[in-house]
């Protein structure tokens, strides 16, 4: 294997980011000075030592069962999310900007959701085409007129960011339904603390330890008031589809971090529009539910009647304000690909501000000029259908055959409103340990935000890395892995960071992620 016997120093000296913005080195015009301390320490390591520690870390992930289930040959197999030990580092100032940008975006999306489920000013004022919202498969008319605590709909958000060749962060998409991956953020940090104490000591990192506590706090804030009990301590639960869900590890992780029961649909019952869980001592009232089940499967009485995962009658309990759900029902309309294109306008409309983190340039093909531009530049653009999730139906112009481009053109002309197009974003890279040595690999970033009364953003987020050479695909199902994400503290002061004992699973729920790379 290349690099064996060498020092990391040698490997970094011959490292070449191939013209992409590099997360460790920056670019010629924008060098990354904040990573000096870490680079120095990396240089002192031996490559073989780095590899050994990396393989120890992966084995530990497997033994701890920090895995997700994949199904092959009708058998469920535990896989770990490959973990790369070279961290991705974000400067304090840069993070402060991202944090504000995420908060701004979540604020606008929540105002948008409250609006469309009430008076629909945004539609009446023509900011967003009404049919785009009301005709959207994820718009839930049942939510009309229901007012939620703090008018918050998206309590847990994962905003997918990419960094372009100029080093500018851009939003690639919003995940406002059931975003996953946060458990890896915490577990990756634990792993680094165990495997590389020498790399991170005294560096001054923002800690990621308190996500569970923040989530529980939010779940309690939104719990409906109860007059029938004296000292009210809301019963929070996490509702999971069960042990065979690919993200089950994350459900476990979050339930443990919050110290609440992880329940399945069969553990809950609705009686007189109130939700109960089945305990050894009988039925017990539930006040607030962090649900990891999609809208469709949540309640066979209100939505998909074939769902066996859900809880019959839970929507009615929710509608009557007897139980809180996070996220709210009907948030899918806000993270839709077509609606995404309007988010900057939404921010302007509701907040009177410009978006702090820009979108990737998006051409909304329902608009004639945008359609023409898209048709004229088909071979340079990524064309995405708006209604599909999981990267289906996407055409990547620069990589498509002539026939594929023609097929795409025909579809565009047939139903332009169903498509958007975007330029290929030259995603930033980060030095990554590979079979070939230390090589640049493309990364993205998914910060996680929790909102009840106000929005809190976990410092950093999940850095996903495309482990295959040259590919932009960071999805776990396509050979993607993850890295620890280090947000530096302002003055380089270390925050106290307790080492906890636990462990998680990735993000199959909503893998629209690096959509241009599908």
């Amino acid at each position, binding site marked *: 294997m290349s690099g064996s016997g060498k020092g990391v120093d040698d490997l970094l000296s011959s490292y070449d980011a191939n013209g992409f913005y590099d997360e460790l080195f920056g670019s010629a015009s924008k060098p990354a000075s904040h990573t000096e301390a870490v680079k120095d320490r990396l240089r002192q390591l031996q490559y073989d030592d780095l590899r050994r520690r990396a393989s120890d870390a992966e084995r530990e992930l497997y033994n*701890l069962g920090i895995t997700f289930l994949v199904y092959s040959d009708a058998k469920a197999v535990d896989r770990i999310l490959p973990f790369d030990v070279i961290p991705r580092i974000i400067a304090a100032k840069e993070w402060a900007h991202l944090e504000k940008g995420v908060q701004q975006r979540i604020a606008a999306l929540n105002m948008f959701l409250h609006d469309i489920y009430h008076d629909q000013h945004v539609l009446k004022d023509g900011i967003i085409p009404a049919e785009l919202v009301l005709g959207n498969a994820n718009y839930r008319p049942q939510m009309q007129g229901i007012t939620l605590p703090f008018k918050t709909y998206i309590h847990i958000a994962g905003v997918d960011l990419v960094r372009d060749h100029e080093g500018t962060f851009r939003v690639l998409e919003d995940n406002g339904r059931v975003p996953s991956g946060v458990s890896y953020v915490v577990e990756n940090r634990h792993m680094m603390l165990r495997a590389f104490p020498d790399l991170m000591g005294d560096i001054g990192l923002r800690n990621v330890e308190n996500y569970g506590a923040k989530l529980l706090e939010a779940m309690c804030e939104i719990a409906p008031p109860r007059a029938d009990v004296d000292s009210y301590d809301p019963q929070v639960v996490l509702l999971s589809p069960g042990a065979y869900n690919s993200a089950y*590890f994350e459900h476990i992780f979050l339930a443990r971090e919050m110290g609440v*029961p992880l329940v399945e649909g069969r*553990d809950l019952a609705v*009686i007189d529009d109130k939700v109960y869980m*089945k305990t*050894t001592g*009988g039925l017990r009232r539930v006040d607030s539910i962090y649900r990891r089940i999609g809208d469709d499967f949540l309640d066979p009485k209100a939505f998909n009647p074939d769902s066996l995962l859900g809880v019959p009658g839970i929507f009615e309990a929710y509608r009557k304000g007897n139980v809180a759900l996070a996220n709210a029902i009907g948030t899918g309309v806000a993270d839709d690909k077509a609606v995404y294109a309007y988010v900057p306008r939404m921010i302007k409309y509701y907040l009177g501000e410009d978006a702090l983190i820009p979108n990737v340039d998006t051409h909304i093909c329902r608009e004639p000029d945008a359609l023409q531009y898209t048709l004229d530049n088909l071979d340079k653009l990524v064309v995405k259908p708006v209604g599909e999730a999981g990267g289906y139906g996407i055409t990547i112009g620069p990589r498509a055959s002539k026939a594929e481009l023609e097929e795409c053109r025909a579809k565009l002309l047939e139903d332009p409103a169903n498509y958007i197009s975007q330029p290929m974003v030259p995603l930033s890279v980060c030095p990554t340990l590979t079979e070939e040595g230390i090589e640049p690999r493309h990364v993205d970033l998914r910060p996680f935000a929790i909102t009840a009364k106000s929005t809190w953003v976990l410092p950093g987020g999940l850095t996903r890395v495309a482990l295959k050479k040259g590919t932009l695909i960071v999805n776990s199902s396509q050979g993607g892995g993850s890295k620890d994400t280090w947000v530096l503290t302002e003055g380089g002061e270390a925050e106290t960071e307790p080492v906890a004992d636990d462990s998680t699973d990735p993000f199959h729920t909503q893998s629209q992620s690096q959509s241009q790379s599908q």
Partner: protein
Amino acid sequence: MAALLARYAECIFWMARYMERAENLARILDVHETFARDSFGSTNWLPILRLNADEKRFFELYPTASVKNVLNFYVLDQNNPTSIIAAIASARENARQLRPLISTEMWAHLNMFYNRLLALEPATDLAQHNIQRLCASIKEACQTHTGITEGTFFRDQGWYFYQLGRNLERADQATRVLDIKYHTLLPSPRDIGTPIDISQWNSLLRSAAGYHAFRRVYPRGMTPAAVAGFLLFNDNFPRSVLVCMREVDSLLNRLNSKYRLRRGTLPLERSDELLGNLSNQTIESVISVGLHEYLDGLQINFGKLSNDIAQAFFLIDEPGTLSA
């Protein structure tokens, strides 16, 4: 006080049962291989198949009850629900659901244990000279699980259900192993007083780690009645049916009083009755009625008790069970 999800209670109960089952089976196979040889130095594995009345299923899968076949059937055959690997797989599946509740160490150990079993090769690991080593390592892994659980599992309701499962399974296994030996142990006129006779008794006691304890109580002599009586009714032997059932009864009592699980009276009544019966029995009176019939009766009662526990704590459906 924190409530315990009924499904979790059920998973804990069964995780403990499966671990105990695996340990008992490893003990039986180990001891059988070592001590249960006849005067020609060979072992007869047929009686082992009577442990769970497995003969029919076994002969559907294997042509003969050879050492190799029986060991494969009981250790590595995932198609056999009564194999060790099946028990560990079930324990792990329960543990997977319990991960929000059990310690990371419990899960990690069980996960590694299962993966280790999966990696075993029948040709080498089940070869005769490796059997003892394999059984010993399985037994030790089960004991490690017990130790980790003792040292890390939070002592709330969940702990009670864990101990309930463990003790009920242990009592049940004790009756089963005694029952299969019953036929072979009753000395035939030919064997009385021969070395084989003695080694069979050793085998039974050793599979329950009871040989030395037995010697402490009965320094001299060894009769079928004394061994059976020891395994059923001894007051202090941790694997005797009486000690296990005393523990079960006390756990059910504490669940009722400490956690006020009002539905717990049904299993408690049955357990009180069972315990009363065990406490007032002598092995002589049991044998005069028929040991096999008595053991059969116990197993039926353990089954009923297990059902009562499920009814009381695991199956919470009726609106009548509303609590605060």
